């Protein structure tokens, strides 16, 4: 698949879920908070396009609202990772080889030793389960990822002539980082952001599946899967559809990330294939 096809296919796939999530803010086919036992386990069709679950809730509505939780968690987590990781990476690169650089990078290694799930377990054990925990856990996990990408990209730029020219012109390291380094690594960050966004969707699903993320009655894809687990023998549809939503959303974002990488940085094209 060429980069352009990947970009469009992935972008369209992701857009479907983004639109569904946005629409769910103002309209869903049925109320997801209302339990309607009389309508429980309706097969797909008629009033319920994808059928209802064991509590009579409309599956399509649940998936739409679930998309909203997933996207919100993953997006804020990417924001946390970028907001803290990028400045750290810039500082490390501007002071490359110094003690500050060493401390930042060793700190990064340390955070890397805490998988998002372990962070979520720790936070939940202390503060109790909530969707905020999932955001924090995934966000903290994202920090060293962005710090590394930023530092790596910035290091190669610091040796270039136009940076030297900027220094000769009297600009300090902070100003050079913001005015010259940051715009030139923006592509890298956008691509990494897409990857972390898709990883965040997967992580959020896993966390809410084990009860460390979104709490009832907020619908989320992971929790829908957890609730469907006992129903898998009788109504497999309840377990298959939310999983399919996760796969398509993540697939779309990954394709988009690959396509973006090719489109934004021709130098990477050779390595990508």
């Amino acid at each position: 698949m060429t980069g352009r096809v990947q970009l469009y296919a992935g972008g369209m796939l992701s857009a479907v879920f983004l639109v569904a999530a946005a629409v769910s803010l103002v309209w869903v086919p049925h109320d997801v908070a209302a339990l309607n036992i009389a309508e429980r386990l309706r097969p797909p069709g008629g009033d319920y396009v994808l059928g209802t679950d064991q509590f009579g809730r409309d599956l399509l509505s649940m998936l739409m609202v679930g998309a909203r939780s997933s996207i919100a968690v993953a997006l804020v987590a990417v924001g946390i990772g970028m907001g803290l990781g990028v400045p750290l990476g810039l500082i490390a690169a501007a002071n490359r080889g110094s003690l500050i650089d060493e401390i930042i990078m060793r700190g990064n290694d340390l955070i890397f030793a805490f998988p998002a799930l372990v962070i979520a377990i720790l936070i939940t054990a202390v503060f109790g389960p909530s969707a905020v925990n999932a955001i924090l856990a995934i966000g903290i996990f994202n920090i060293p990822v962005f710090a590394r990408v930023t530092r790596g990209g910035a290091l190669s730029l610091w040796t270039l002539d136009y940076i030297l020219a900027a220094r000769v012109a009297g600009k300090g390291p902070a100003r050079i980082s913001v005015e010259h380094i940051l715009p030139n690594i923006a592509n890298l960050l956008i691509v990494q952001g897409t990857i972390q966004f898709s990883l965040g969707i997967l992580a959020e699903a896993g966390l809410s599946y084990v009860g460390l993320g979104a709490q009832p009655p907020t619908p989320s894809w992971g929790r829908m899967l957890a609730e469907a687990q006992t129903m898998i023998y009788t109504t497999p549809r309840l377990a298959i559809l939310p999983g399919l939503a996760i796969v398509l959303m993540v697939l779309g974002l990954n394709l988009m990330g690959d396509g973006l990488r090719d489109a934004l940085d021709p130098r990477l094209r050779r390595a990508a294939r």
Partner: protein
Amino acid sequence: MLRFTLLRLLSLGLSLAVASLVIFAVIEVIPGDPAAFMLGLNAEPEAVASLRRELGLSGSLADRYISWAGGMLRGDFGQSYTYRVPVADLVAQRLVVSLPLAAYALTLTVLIAVPVGLAAAARRGSAADYGIMGATQLGIAVPNFWFAMLLVLVFAVNLRWFSAGGFPGWEAGLFPGLKALTLPAVALALPQAAILARVMRSALIETLGQDYIRSARAKGLSRAQAIRRHALRNALIPVLTIMGLQFSFLLAGAIIIENVFFLPGLGRLIFQAITQRDLVVVESVVMLLVFAVILVTFVVDLAYAAVDPRLRRR
């Protein structure tokens, strides 16, 4: 190599010390008293006082940290409040499920990823390559716990080849034990294998473009011989690194997958501990997990340096 090993060992010790401080600090920030937190709202004051004594909460923060960390160094992880047994015993009971599961999954990952990546790289640009790349793209997008549910649906519910969950214990014999771990291991392995196969493919393609491969071909080696004798070994270096990084995902995945299959492993232990507010168990098991990740990184670093002398300088 000795200097490198010693330096890495020093940084391993330092990482562990800092990680333990972080975990200790997070558990300590609990608003109010840990003993009251563990016993809940309706606890009798006498019960709280006695638990405070049991947890050694009367000492200073520094004393408590030293006794916790020092205890772990001696293999003493403290006493579980809910189970009334040493945490070390609980962990040992659960590790006999979790460790074989992780090892089983890792083995499957390598057994799938290496040949698949090799096949794709060797036939680069062919229909087989595109098929493999498409399949791995899909594999990366699949959450392992959902894949586990699908496996249960197909192989346990419909075909009835495997049971849907539970673990008979190793007393029941090696084969029943492995059989119970097979679906969980496959569920863990396939998404990981998809990532690793892609790494394997691009590493091999990169290596095949090197001059020494051209020399080997010029010397009269066939393409297959050149891959087998020269390219494969060099391509395995990045594969090894990614495997080291994947370990923490494997660990996290195992904890979640154990819930799908009701396996009595570390994952179940830690989730029960969270609901029962057994902070001693949470604190020690989290430290153990972080220790495992740091240790694997250390081992990969050493293996890496042993294979490639250029990496020893730093």
